């Protein structure tokens, strides 16, 4: 599918109407969904209505913004007023929000055309999108394989051209991992850059909304549209938002790029390692200064994450009790209703994390787990701070492997958790980070390169990514579903 800029030019020059663009996306969805299952709901009617409005605007000679008329997929953990928002959970089956999330409101105002709500791991808890209560999304490069998670629906939809761009959410890698597995660009912004109001919370101190796109440029445009201070989110940062497209300069001469030593070695697929090393060489060839950097506490990211995230989740998910909305199991008394609603309404992984989080916050265990994890979190942050005294951008593989087969890791949660090894420390530190394609393995599966920059330095991140992207052919490949 064409890029945002190309589509915008086609719309403005009246080469194509927005309705035609939308219909093309809907046709692609109709054709591919039986295989991919990226969408939990396709909002064709609303999409065509929005498209007609944009067409009317163009016809009336009114100026339109870059995102007007662009088909977009929205992860189904973002509240959309009047449109079911399920978080791929049975407990929110038929839940229809009475309000609109800040990001989707911004996109609506920008004229973007939401074509549907994309699949995810239940409540964004997972690395493969297999934890959805409704369907398993296939990887467009190999439908036997997973798209990564938890924003697997969004990544697969973008990779397969069901929409131009999509929103995902990233708590421990949920944008970057599926971006890596599906061969697209995925960006997790600085914590607080994008409002979380209306994002159904998984782990509040880690969650961040971000774009999934076919190119760095598309990601930059979408980021610009959703970023910005929101008085409804107390953790949102009150900072001026630059024009991120201004950072898209294919020149990184003299930029200091650090290679995180700890992300190479044991557990890393040799093909992924080799490919990422080649990408680093490419960056060097482009004029960047490459440094080896050590983040000694990086490896504690995973255990730290798997205490903090479930702790917060155990409280965030307490509200799903059958009393007010969503699924309710009928029972004889209140306690039985609570228990049956939650045991039937939540899937295994969600229940596992609620139990872990309840345990780690319990009296007598709090200090040993939650408090200790918070201390380690501070140390991990310090490692990054020290690293950014020496370099502008850090690089690593996004994931230790390429996409694995559906069902391969579902019986072993710990192996599944290892997929997040490279990405979770970034969330713990609140840093911006993106994943972009840097090659393919012998089976033709995409490999992702992770880039990390300092707080609010999305610009340099986009610049390095853009320079790399423009110098390499990877983004030109498309899957044949």
């Amino acid at each position, binding site marked *: 599918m064409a890029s945002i800029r190309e589509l915008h030019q086609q719309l403005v020059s009246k080469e194509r109407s927005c309705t035609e663009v939308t219909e093309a996306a809907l046709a692609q969805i109709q054709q591919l969904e039986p295989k991919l299952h990226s969408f939990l709901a396709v909002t064709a009617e609303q999409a065509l209505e929005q498209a007609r409005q944009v067409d009317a605007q163009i016809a009336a000679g009114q100026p339109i913004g870059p995102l007007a008329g662009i088909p977009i997929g929205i992860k189904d953990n973002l*509240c959309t007023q009047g449109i079911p928002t399920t978080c791929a959970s049975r407990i929110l089956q038929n839940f229809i929000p009475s309000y609109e999330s800040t990001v989707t409101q911004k996109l609506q105002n920008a004229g973007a055309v939401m074509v549907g709500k994309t699949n995810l791991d239940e409540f964004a808890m997972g690395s493969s999108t297999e934890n959805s209560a409704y369907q398993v999304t296939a990887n467009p490069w190999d439908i036997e394989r997973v798209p990564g998670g938890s924003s697997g629906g969004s990544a697969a939809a973008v990779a397969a051209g069901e929409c131009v761009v999509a929103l995902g959410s990233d708590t421990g890698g949920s944008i970057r991992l599926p971006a890596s597995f599906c061969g697209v660009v995925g960006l997790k912004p600085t914590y607080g850059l994008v409002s979380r109001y*209306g994002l159904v919370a998984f782990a*509040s101190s880690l969650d961040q909304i971000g774009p999934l796109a076919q190119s760095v440029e598309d990601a930059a445009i979408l980021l610009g549209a959703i970023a910005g201070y929101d008085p409804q989110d*107390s953790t949102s940062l009150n900072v001026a938002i630059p024009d991120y497209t201004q950072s898209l300069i294919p020149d990184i001469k003299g930029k200091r790029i650090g290679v995180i030593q700890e992300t190479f070695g044991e557990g890393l697929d040799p093909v992924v390692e080799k490919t990422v090393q080649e990408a680093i060489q490419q960056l060097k060839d482009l004029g960047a200064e490459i440094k080896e950097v050590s983040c000694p506490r990086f490896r504690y990211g995973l255990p730290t994450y798997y205490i903090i995230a479930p702790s917060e989740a155990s409280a965030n998910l*307490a509200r799903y009790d059958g009393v007010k909305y969503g699924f309710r199991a009928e029972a004889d008394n209140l306690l039985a209703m609570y228990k049956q609603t939650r045991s039937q309404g939540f899937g295994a992984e969600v229940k596992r994390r609620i139990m872990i989080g309840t345990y780690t*916050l319990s009296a007598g265990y709090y200090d040993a787990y939650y408090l200790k994890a918070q201390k380690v979190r501070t140390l991990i942050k310090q490692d990054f701070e020290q690293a950014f005294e020496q370099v502008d951008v850090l690089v690593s593989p996004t994931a230790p492997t390429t996409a694995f087969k559906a069902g391969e890791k579902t019986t072993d949660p710990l192996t599944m958790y290892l997929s997040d090894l490279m990405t979770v420390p970034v969330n713990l530190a609140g840093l911006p980070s993106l994943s972009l394609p840097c090659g393919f393995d012998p089976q033709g599966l995409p490999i992702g390169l992770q880039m990390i920059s300092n707080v609010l330095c999305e610009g340099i991140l986009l610049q390095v990514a853009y320079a790399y992207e423009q110098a390499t052919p990877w983004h030109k490949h498309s899957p044949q579903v």
Partner: protein
Amino acid sequence: MTSAAPVKTQYEAVIGLETHCQLKTTTKIFCSCATDFGAPPNHQVCPICMGMPGVLPVLNQKVLEYAVKAGLALNCQIASYSKFDRKQYFYPDLPKNYQISQYDLPIAEHGWLEIELVDAAGDPCHKKVGITRLHMEEDAGKLVHGGSDRLSGSTYSLADFNRTGVPLCEIVSEPDLRSGAEAAEYAQELRRILRYLGVCDGNMQEGSLRCDVNISMRPVGQTKFGTKVEIKNMNSFNAIQRAIDYEIERQTEALECGELIIQETRLWEEGTQQTISMRVKEGSSDYRYFPEPDLCAIELPAEQLVQWQSELPELPAHKRHYYETELGLSAYDARLLTDDRVVAEYFESTVVAGGNPKQAANWIMGDITGYLNNHKLSITELALQPQGLAELIVLIENSTISSKIAKDLLPELLSRGGSAKEMVERQGLTQIADPGTLTTMINEVLLAHPQELEQYRNGKTKLQGFFVGQIMKKTGGRAEPKITNQLLVQKLKG
């Protein structure tokens, strides 16, 4: 050999209060819903206070201001770094199934409050009661149970979330109180302070001030605390006192019989004037507190603190002291006048306008309070301004009018306001004190009543009152009583 009777153990009560005060903000603590009492169920709710998926709290800055001011007024240390925490428990009136509260870093700590008591000899004395902490939190909703008063046994329950997210300030006292009377006095003084600050209505009937009591007994002289019992459901100061007195008696009797006190929560029943067991606490509940990640920590700038400190009004204890020592009022009068800030301010304005303090106090506590009660008015709604009252007092003091005339003038002054002086002049009510004028009038009266004069001179001196009455009638009550009497007696005696 002598045998001593066994010495009966004397017990003392150890009492602490936990007070929940609804802060008088127009909107809720984390959303912009209204806080008015008495709206139809679920009419003051939004996705945020309903705990809908994806919503986030934003702290109402007025809540912080009110809590800090309350903390300052209670002599607390205000935390330079404070935070909110999640207190987790499942209950249908709590939409998120956690309450946003403050756990280990409350906004204010280590304060005290001084109460006025009467000692064994009947003399007034003071007692300092420690304030352990003060913190901010959100209120829960209300459940209406069908088929039973309580959740257990009800066939259905309806949830009303109007109150969900109404800002509360919880104030915990040290276990410094020793009797029902002390506890009631503490609660009253606390309410007075909160009302002076304008941060809380203190309406116990509507639940905007709720006191829970922790009470235990121990032998006098023992430092270790006994087993604690919590009492709830008192909706007046009187009920607090009686519930504690009842509980002291109940626990003392139990201890004297060698029984153990059970750690439990008991409810005060107004009907039977007893406490009844509500639930027995088995170990302490684990609320799994942890820092609220959706809210930033509160770091109060020093200038802000100074600003709020400077906005504090003069507090009731200070006013009482001033009234007694500088204005010469009795402790009783001082207490009555300062109970309500607006009454105290009315009184003070009257004094500033030249009214004699004792007279001003008498008028305000007597006729004016009576009038306000009859007409269900607040003193701020009174047409008579403090200047008007001060004028009236001055007119009496300098003998321009009599107290009787003043009383006659009062109803109109109260309902229509205006200047007492002008009214007196307009209606020609100035007292007649000129001896010449009075003598003329006395002579006329004596001439008109020869019979009575005769009788008086024959020894029926009681008739003096009759002549005074006639003079008053003739002058419309304006004759200055003292001079009139002097002159009259002279004339009567011939």
